[in-house]
C-alpha cells in the first residue's frame, strides 16, 4: 500500500547510549546523587519496570544500532531504520528516560532540564526531521510551568510531555499550572502511557502480568481523560490541545457516550461544565494510533475512525519498541486518500502547526 509522502510520526523514543550522556547538562551534585541513589520513583526497582518487558528495553530485536548501545540510542541508525525506511517526514521524540515522576522533586527537575538539552542538541540539531518534547517534573507543577516557559519559544520543541500515571488524576487542580503555561504558549500537551503513579495499576490492585499492564493503559487513560474533562480543564483553557499518546483510541467513542449519558443525569454536581463532555473531547483532544487494536474483522476499525472523526487520530510508530506499527501496514481496511492524508500528516499539521 502506498502512503502519502512525508509521514508524521507522533511517538519516537530516544534512549541514552550510556548513563553519562546527560552529564554535560547536570550539576555535579546531581551526577553524584544519581550515581549513589539512582532515580527513585514510586516503583520497586531502581532500574526498569516491575512488570518485566517482553524483550530487553521493550525494544525491537533488530533495532540495536550497529555501533553499539540500546535500541533507539543512535541518531544515525534511527535515521536509517525509521525515518528513511518508512518515509517519515517529521516526528516527535518522547523520552522515557527516568526523570518525570522521580520522587525527589529537585532531582526530577534537574533530570528533566538535562533531558531537554540532550533532545535538542544531540537529536534535533543533528536531524531536522525530529522535534523534541518539553519533559517536565510534573509532580512539581510550578517548576514544570517554569520549564515550559523556558523552552516554549524554541521551535525545536513541539509539545509538553506528561506520562499517564501521575500521582493524582491529571485534571486535579494541583496540575493546573502546567496547563496554564501550555495554553499561554499555545503548545500542545502530550500524555504518553506509562509512569508510576504510586497507586496499583488497576482499581482492584496489582495485576500479575505485563500483558495486563499493557492492556490496562487504555483504562488508566480513560480515567485520566475523564478527570481532565470533568474537572473543567478544557472549560478553563478552551484552546488547550491535548494529545493522548500510546493510550489506544478505540475506547474513546464508548467513553464519550458513557460520559454524556451520566453527565445528563448528574450535571447538578458539575455546574462548571458548560458543554457536554463529548463536546470538550471533540474540540480539545487528539490521539496517536499505535498500538492499533486488532479486531478479527479489521473493517470494524473504520467504524471507530468514523465515529471519532478522521481528524482526531494521528499516525505513530512507537519506534524502537517491540509493538512498533509500520505505516504501510497500519490502515488495513478501506479508506479514502483524504482520510489517509489526514491520518498520516494533515491532523498533525493542524495540531502542531508551525512547530
Amino acid at each position, binding site marked *: 500500500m502506498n502512503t502519502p509522502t512525508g509521514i508524521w510520526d507522533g511517538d519516537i523514543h530516544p534512549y541514552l547510549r550510556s548513563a553519562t550522556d546527560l552529564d554535560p547538562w547536570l550539576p555535579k551534585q546531581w551526577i553524584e546523587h544519581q550515581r549513589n541513589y539512582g532515580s527513585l520513583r514510586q516503583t520497586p526497582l531502581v532500574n526498569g519496570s516491575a512488570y518485566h518487558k517482553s524483550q530487553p528495553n521493550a525494544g525491537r530485536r533488530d533495532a540495536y544500532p550497529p555501533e553499539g548501545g540500546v535500541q533507539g540510542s543512535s541518531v544515525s541508525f534511527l535515521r536509517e531504520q525509521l525515518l528513511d525506511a518508512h518515509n517519515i517526514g517529521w516526528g516527535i521524540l518522547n523520552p522515557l528516560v527516568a526523570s518525570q515522576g522521580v520522587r525527589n522533586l529537585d532531582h526530577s527537575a534537574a533530570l528533566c532540564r538535562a533531558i531537554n538539552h540532550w533532545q535538542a542538541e544531540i537529536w534535533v540539531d543533528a536531524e531536522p526531521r525530529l522535534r523534541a518534547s518539553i519533559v517536565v517534573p510534573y509532580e512539581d507543577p510550578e517548576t514544570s510551568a517554569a520549564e515550559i516557559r523556558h523552552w516554549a519559544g524554541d521551535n525545536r520543541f513541539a509539545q509538553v510531555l506528561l506520562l499517564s500515571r501521575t500521582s493524582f488524576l491529571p485534571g486535579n487542580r494541583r496540575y493546573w499550572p502546567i496547563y496554564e503555561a501550555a495554553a499561554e504558549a499555545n503548545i500542545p500537551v502530550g500524555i504518553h502511557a506509562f509512569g508510576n503513579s504510586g*497507586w496499583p495499576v488497576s482499581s482492584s490492585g496489582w495485576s500479575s502480568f505485563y500483558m*495486563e499492564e499493557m492492556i490496562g493503559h487504555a483504562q488508566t487513560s480513560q480515567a485520566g481523560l475523564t478527570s481532565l474533562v470533568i474537572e473543567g480543564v478544557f472549560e478553563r483553557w478552551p484552546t488547550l490541545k491535548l494529545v493522548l499518546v500510546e493510550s489506544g483510541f478505540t*475506547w474513546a467513542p464508548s467513553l464519550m457516550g*458513557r460520559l454524556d449519558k451520566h453527565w445528563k443525569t*448528574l450535571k447538578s454536581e458539575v455546574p462548571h461544565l458548560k458543554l457536554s463532555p463529548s463536546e470538550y473531547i471533540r474540540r480539545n483532544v487528539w490521539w496517536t494510533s499505535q498500538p*492499533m487494536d486488532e479486531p478479527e474483522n479489521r473493517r470494524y476499525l473504520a467504524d471507530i475512525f468514523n465515529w471519532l472523526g478522521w481528524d482526531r487520530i494521528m499516525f505513530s510508530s512507537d519506534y524502537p519498541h517491540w509493538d512498533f506499527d509500520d505505516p504501510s501496514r497500519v490502515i488495513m481496511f478501506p479508506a479514502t486518500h483524504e482520510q489517509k492524508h489526514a491520518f498520516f500528516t494533515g491532523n498533525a499539521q493542524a495540531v502542531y502547526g508551525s512547530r
Partner: protein
Amino acid sequence: MQIDVDIHPGTPDVAALFPYLPEHWRDMSVMRGITDLHSANYPDMTPLAARPDWRPPKGRPGTSASLIASQCLEPFGTNVGILNPLFPVQTFYADDLAQAFASALNDWTRAEFLDRDVRFRGSIVVSLENVEMAVEEIDRCAADTRFVQVLVLAGTARLLGRRTYWPIYEACVRHGLSLGIHAGQDFRNAPTALGWPSYYLEDYVAHAQSFQYQLTSLFCEGVFNRYPTLKVVMLESGWTWVPALLWRIAKYWGGLRFEVPWTDRSPEEVVRDQLRFSLTPIDGPDTDQLRRVIDHIGSDQVILFSTDYPHNQFDGIDVFPTAFDATLRKIISDDAPRAAYPRLGSLT
C-alpha cells in the same frame, strides 16, 4: 418470557437485618451505633440512585416485594426478576463481621422477597475478605435453588482472576451458579488507577474501567480455561466498551501469550462462550451505532435484559435502543438470560 437480571431491592437499614443476625452481632450493632450502611457507590439522594417516579416520599426505594413487583415487574411484562442487593456488606474489614452481615442479607432476601413472590430469584452476596467463609456461605445458600448466582462487586482488593478467588468459582460450577459482578467498589483500592476522583460522576463512569480490568484479569489468569462451564455476568457494567477491550486484549495476546500459555481461546471466543452483560445502562446516543456495537462484539447472545431498578437510567418503560429489532429483543429478554443462568434453564 422476560427475565430482568438486575433489580436492586432496598435494605432500609441495619435493623432490617436484625431478624437474620446472630444475637452477638445485633448487640454489637446497637452498642456501637451501626445503624445503617450507606454506600458511597450510590449515595441515596443523587439523581442517579433512584428514578423520580420510583423514589418514595421517605426512605430507600424498592424495600418490599410488592412494591418492586408493581413498579418493576408488571409495567415491563417481566416474568422473572433477579435481585442484586447492594447493601454494602463488602465494606466490613473483619472476617466474622463481614460474614455475619452477608449471611443476614442473603436470609433477608430469601424471607422478604423470594418467599413472598415466586417471580423473584436471588443472588448470594459474599464478602471476599475471607474466601473460605465465602465458599461456606455459597454452600449454605445454594441448597435453595431460587438463588441463581454469586454476587461480588467490580472493585476488589485483588483482581478477580487471582487464584486466591478460584475456590469461589469452583463452588459456582459445583452448584450450577453463575458469577455476577456488579458495578461498585469494595473500597480496598481507589476507584481509579490514578487515585480518588473529585466528583461522583467520575466514580460512576470509572465503574466501566473496573470491569475492563476484571475481564482482562479473568482472561489472562485462565479462569475461563480452568472453568469452561462458568458463566460470568457483568451487571450495570455498560457494554459499549466491550469490543475495544477485546481488540486490545487480542492485540497483546498476539504478542505476549507466552506469559499466559494456558489461554486456549481468543478473548472474542471467550466472551461469546462465557461472558454476559446486563442491558442497562446503555452508554451511548440512541443511534444505529448501538446496533453496530453488537456486530463488533460478534454475538447477539451476550446482552441480558435489565432495568437496573430503581436506578435512574431511562424514562418510562422503553428500555431497548431503537435500533434493536424484535428478534434481538427476544434474545435479550428470554434466550440469553436462560443461557446465562443454568438455574433458569428449566423455566417455562
